[in-house]
């Protein structure tokens, strides 16, 4: 990426859920990072660490508890006119994990895909509307005969393509893909990932790609952020992260990925992470600090000094 233009700026974003009896879940707890135009930022971390909540808050499905999200400089959560809100909604789209649950079973594929076109008045005539639907079907590798069928007539991979066509229908700039391939077969996963990459090249799309399959994330992402308990603990270029993980949680995570090679598996040494291993002192402040250019780690001042000498 030659010119790095920020499309999304996330500043100290917090999302707390009040779950009654004074209990608060800090699902997202102070995230600060940018997403550049045209890149894919992968987001990984264990179940419940706040990946989906991060995506949903960025796109404005939840109101942030604290902090802000700027899209092209515009604050997503600030009060806006209905028109501004509609434009914003159009530019940011989400693809969901479950291709079965996320498509309305009683709507035809054409109506599912065209829903956004209708809401945003993107087609002037019925013909134009259908034309767009046919184009979109072809873009995602389906064909126009599929337009009048219902979701249950499709395989998982095909349904996920319909979900992608629906997201593309309103010509977004930014797509949040929340585990878009987890429910699919290995061979079909590759189809969907190839399609997403192709669309990115052709349309200059920006992706936030949430997943727990770390080999697929590495393949598709330019940069990767690792989350742990609502916080981002490490952020770096994809290759750099896998080659030189710094935070002990990242190391543990990477050491647990099973690889399709029996010999490596027979000799696998798994690293176990324990939060207490940091031995942080009372009141020691943790910050997201840059260890090497573009490689950030959540750490204390003391750890920062240590990492600096170890990794530079």
């Amino acid at each position: 990426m030659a010119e790095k233009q920020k499309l999304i700026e996330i500043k100290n974003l917090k999302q707390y859920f009040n779950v009654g009896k004074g209990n608060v879940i800090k699902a997202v707890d102070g995230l600060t990072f940018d997403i550049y135009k045209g890149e894919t930022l992968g987001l990984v971390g264990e179940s419940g660490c706040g990946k989906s909540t991060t995506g949903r808050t960025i796109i404005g499905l939840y109101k942030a508890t604290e902090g802000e999200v700027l899209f092209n400089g515009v604050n997503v959560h600030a009060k806006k006119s209905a028109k501004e809100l509609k434009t914003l909604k159009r530019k940011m789209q989400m693809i969901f994990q479950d291709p079965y649950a996320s498509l309305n079973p009683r709507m035809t594929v054409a109506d599912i895909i065209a829903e956004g076109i209708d809401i945003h008045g993107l087609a002037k005539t019925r013909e134009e509307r259908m034309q767009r639907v046919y184009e979109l079907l072809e873009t995602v590798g389906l064909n126009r005969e599929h337009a009048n069928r219902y979701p249950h007539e499709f395989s998982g991979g095909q349904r996920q393509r319909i979900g992608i066509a629906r997201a593309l229908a309103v010509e977004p700039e930014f797509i949040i893909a929340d585990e878009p391939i987890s429910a699919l077969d290995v061979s079909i996963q590759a189809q969907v990932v190839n399609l997403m990459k192709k669309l990115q090249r052709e349309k200059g799309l920006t992706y936030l790609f949430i997943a727990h399959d770390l080999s697929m994330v590495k393949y598709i992402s330019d940069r990767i952020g690792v989350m742990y308990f609502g916080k981002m603990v490490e952020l770096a270029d994809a290759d750099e992260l896998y080659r030189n993980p710094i935070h002990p949680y990242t190391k543990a995570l990477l050491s647990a990925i099973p690889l399709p090679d029996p010999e490596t598996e027979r000799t696998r040494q798994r690293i176990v992470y324990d939060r207490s291993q940091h031995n942080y002192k009372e009141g020691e402040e943790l910050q997201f600090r840059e260890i090497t250019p573009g490689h950030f780690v959540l750490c204390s001042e003391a750890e920062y000094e240590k990492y600096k000498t170890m990794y530079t």
Partner: protein
Amino acid sequence: MEKLLEVKNLEVSFQTYGGEVQAVRGVSFHLNKGETLAIVGESGSGKSVTSQTIMRLIPTPPGKIKSGQIIFNGEDLVKKTDKEMEQIRGKEIGMIFQDPMTSLNPTMKVGHQIMEVLIKHQKMSKSAAKERAIELLRLVGIPMPEKRVNQYPHEFSGGMRQRAMIAVALASNPKLLIADEPTTALDVTIQAQILELMKDLQKKTGTSIIFITHDLGVVANVADRVAVMYAGKIVEMGTVDEIFYDPRHPYTWGLLASMPSLDSDDQTELAAIPGSPPDLTNPPKGDAFAPRNPYAMKIDFEMEPPMFKVSDTHYAATWLLHPDAPKVEPPEAVKKRLRKLSSNYEKPVVVKESE
């Protein structure tokens, strides 16, 4: 090596509105004592139906075992009555399902669910069963088992529920454990813990395991042998090294090539297998994989390939192994894996029907 299970020419179908779904179309394999066999393959290829048939858990109707034998411990499970099967299930054969919430009883404390098995199958007293339940929870890595034993499934996190289900399945010391995608919904760290746990328990108890998964990394980690299924049949079977370092079937090649590799920086397209799997109400003539197979020859569309034997342990059903077939190059990603295995025969030989 002693055989614990032998499945012979199993055929299972379902009657549906759209016709007869031929879910399993002549599957044969065996499992030795203390061994782990992984079954991989396309969604809908019959992995779950095969394993549910061994447990005799397919609903009949619409399901039907059309032919075949399931010899377990010298007896044919196909011939057992439902009552006899109930004795075998839970006692001799344990099963772990993909979604723990469907098999744990949400209204019953986790500890009680384990105790039930112990009291019923091991004839333990209530207090002995409780003690053993706590021990089992500790064994599967649940912290503070004395406390957890009295909790309900919804009070457990996803990974803990999965482990609790494993504890239930292990309670009866089964000779055979069938695990159908037991870790697919879990994070890699918890997945790794559970795989380590299963291997550890296997070492201690000598249990045989059938492990169904679509994650080839997991297969490489747990399996002694691997069966690859496509459209209701086993298309390739071999030791884990044979499948990963010397695969012969083009579907296996496709599976291996469609995975990104962690160490490659290359940004070439993943080699997706084009198209989608066949309709099993009307399975295609010839090799069912032919329409999606870039290596398909004319004969693939007309005649089903026989099983070829590549070594004592390695089988593949593809015409590419026929002596008259042209030599083809597997995809790049597969070529990088290939190794010369000394156990291979000089030339593949056709397996006779009776074997």
